């Protein structure tokens, strides 16, 4: 069934995900090429790969985002495929297209699909057409208070008024009844004008306490697609996920099957291939709304691997060779509960980056503990890249045991020389509402960090 032989892969990434990909390549007997910036000469992915090529200076734009340099490295090392990991060029349709043009297999979906999902408006339109529920409202600018009122009544209160040009909370107004609509609209417009020199605003259903739930899918290049259940990613700070779980403490088997079916159907509609993730908002009533699709492997993919025993990176590579999916939906039962804590080189209270030399580093072992990292004692965390230095993942029969296992693992994990988010994760694990599974994306705002 395999159409394309992949004997050597270049990994256009760094850090733990580059190591993660190399591990699976080794297990599959595939040679690896690491690329690295000048700042990453001592990095672990450089040491673990069969070959390594320095592709530029420390800043990402000159190295890990430098397409000509990466393509040249692929050509001189004569690789069959490139695995982009996550971040950097992983969702660049341009990069995927150039790989295709150079006859190097890009391990991900087709460039057109990446482009489509990368465009907010286009992605929403496509999903609506594929029968995926989206948040009522639309990103078209509101023309008049009358239109706003009509739309708001259609959507139902509460709604949120957002600046079309906006971001970062400015120009945002939550409106809970028709009475306040006109005044709030005016306020939002003038705020938007002041902040972005553009007064255009739009409205959308507002969910007071949403949960961030995502569905992992695997699709081959022959139209077969399955889902691997959901991940609970509501514990975020400024839209940055801090920890993830599989399964979600609130999703029932019926919901899982429904959300999974919606995602699988959408993949088939748009001709999606390789691994992908549908991100949904879940409201208090259990309704879910499409937010966006990530057309790559996610940081949090290990929690799904733990509960399904599927190796997502192995599946990505197999799919890229043109093989059929290895298993059917029924082969993928979810067993137990997994939690991942992202260990970042950051001040755990102020979240300021804390690069520097790691003087001591000990990773926990024992039952149900997995660590994905590219860090070692003596390693210097460079200031140029993402602050995540390790992912600590646990797996146990129940969520309760998984939480106590994570507490034990966090206690055993030693990182000295830099500040990390370990103390923050201990605080989250000890939180009664977290333990009860009773939280939303607002959790971090409500958590006391004293």
């Amino acid at each position, binding site marked *: 069934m395999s159409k394309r032989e992949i004997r050597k892969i270049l990994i256009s990434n760094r850090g733990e995900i580059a190591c993660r990909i190399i591990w699976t390549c080794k297990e599959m007997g595939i*040679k690896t090429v690491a690329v690295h910036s000048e700042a990453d000469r001592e990095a672990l992915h450089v040491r673990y790969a069969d070959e390594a090529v320095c592709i530029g200076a420390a800043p990402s734009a000159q190295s890990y985002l430098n397409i000509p340099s990466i393509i040249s490295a692929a050509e001189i090392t004569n690789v069959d495929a490139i695995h982009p990991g996550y971040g950097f060029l992983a969702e660049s349709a341009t990069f995927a297209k150039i790989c295709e043009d150079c006859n190097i297999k890009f391990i991900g979906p087709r460039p057109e699909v990446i482009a489509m999902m990368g465009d907010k408006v286009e992605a929403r339109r496509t999903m609506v057409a594929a029968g995926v529920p989206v948040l009522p409202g639309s990103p078209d600018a509101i023309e008049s208070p009358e239109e706003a009122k009509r739309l708001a009544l259609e959507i139902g209160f509460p709604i949120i008024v957002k600046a079309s040009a906006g971001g970062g909370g400015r120009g945002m107004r939550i409106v809970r009844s028709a009475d306040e609509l006109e005044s709030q609209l005016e306020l939002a417009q003038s705020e938007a004008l002041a902040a972005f020199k553009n007064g255009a605003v739009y409205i959308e259903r507002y969910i007071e306490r949403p949960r961030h739930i995502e569905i992992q899918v695997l699709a081959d290049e022959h139209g077969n697609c399955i889902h691997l259940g959901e991940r609970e990613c509501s514990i975020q700070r400024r839209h940055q996920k801090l920890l993830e779980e599989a399964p979600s403490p609130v999703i029932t088997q019926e919901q899982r099957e429904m959300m999974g079916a919606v995602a699988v159907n959408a993949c088939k509609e748009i001709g999606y291939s390789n691994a992908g993730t549908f991100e949904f908002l879940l409201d208090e009533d259990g309704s879910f709304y499409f937010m966006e699709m990530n057309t790559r492997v996610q940081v949090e993919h290990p929690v799904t691997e733990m509960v399904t025993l599927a190796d997502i990176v192995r599946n990505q590579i197999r799919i890229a060779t043109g093989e059929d999916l290895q298993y059917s939906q029924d082969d993928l039962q979810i067993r137990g509960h997994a939690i991942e804590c992202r260990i970042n080189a950051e001040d755990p209270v102020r979240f300021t980056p804390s690069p520097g030399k790691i003087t001591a580093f000990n990773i926990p072992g024992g039952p149900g503990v997995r660590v994905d990292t590219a860090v070692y004692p003596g390693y210097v965390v460079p200031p140029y890249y993402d602050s995540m230095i390790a992912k600590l993942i646990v797996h146990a029969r129940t969520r309760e045991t998984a939480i106590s296992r994570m507490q034990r693992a966090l206690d055993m994990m030693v990182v000295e020389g830099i500040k990390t988010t370990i103390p923050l994760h201990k605080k989250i694990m000890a939180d009664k509402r977290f333990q009860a599974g009773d939280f939303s994306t607002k959790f971090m705002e409500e958590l006391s960090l004293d």
Partner: protein
Amino acid sequence: MSDSSASAIAKEMEKQGGKKDDGKAGRSGSHGEPSFNMDELRELAEMVNEHGFTDFEFENENIRVRLSKTPPASAVQYIPQPQPVAYAAPPGQGIAQPQAQAAPAADGSAASVPAASAEEELHQITSPIVGTFYRSSGPDKEPYVKEGVQVAPSTIVCIVEAMKLMNEIEAEVTGEVVKIYVENGQPVEYGQPLFGIRK
């Protein structure tokens, strides 16, 4: 790793020996000392390497000895060193190897120091891009430069082909081509030294 550091130390020692000899020649009139013993030095170098010292200093007349182990060396010990028994090193590994031995000291790491000091009088023209190194504009053409020729800043010294584009590399300095580090047709990475120029 140990090989390269051993040879680096050996080079250092020869240099030390050379300097001593020079010194001796200069001083022989005044001191009348016997020549410095190279065997002793070689043994010394071995010993220093064996014990993992990263620095060694020795001074004669009124002995001065300095042995040192800098923390980078000890940190290296803890870096997981996979031993890919099942996965033999491929021929292409050569791409990374020359770099490791002759990289410019841009990152200030210990590894590049011996190389830098061994070539301390040479300016290095490094590759600004990843690609394939060509000494001439075509298979039947003369090389742009050979060892011994003088170059000006705008002299084209080679081509690095990347993504089917032939990028002409200029010398950017004035001086004499003393070393050519890379074979024609060989892949080069970013920052890899191509030529050594005596300014």
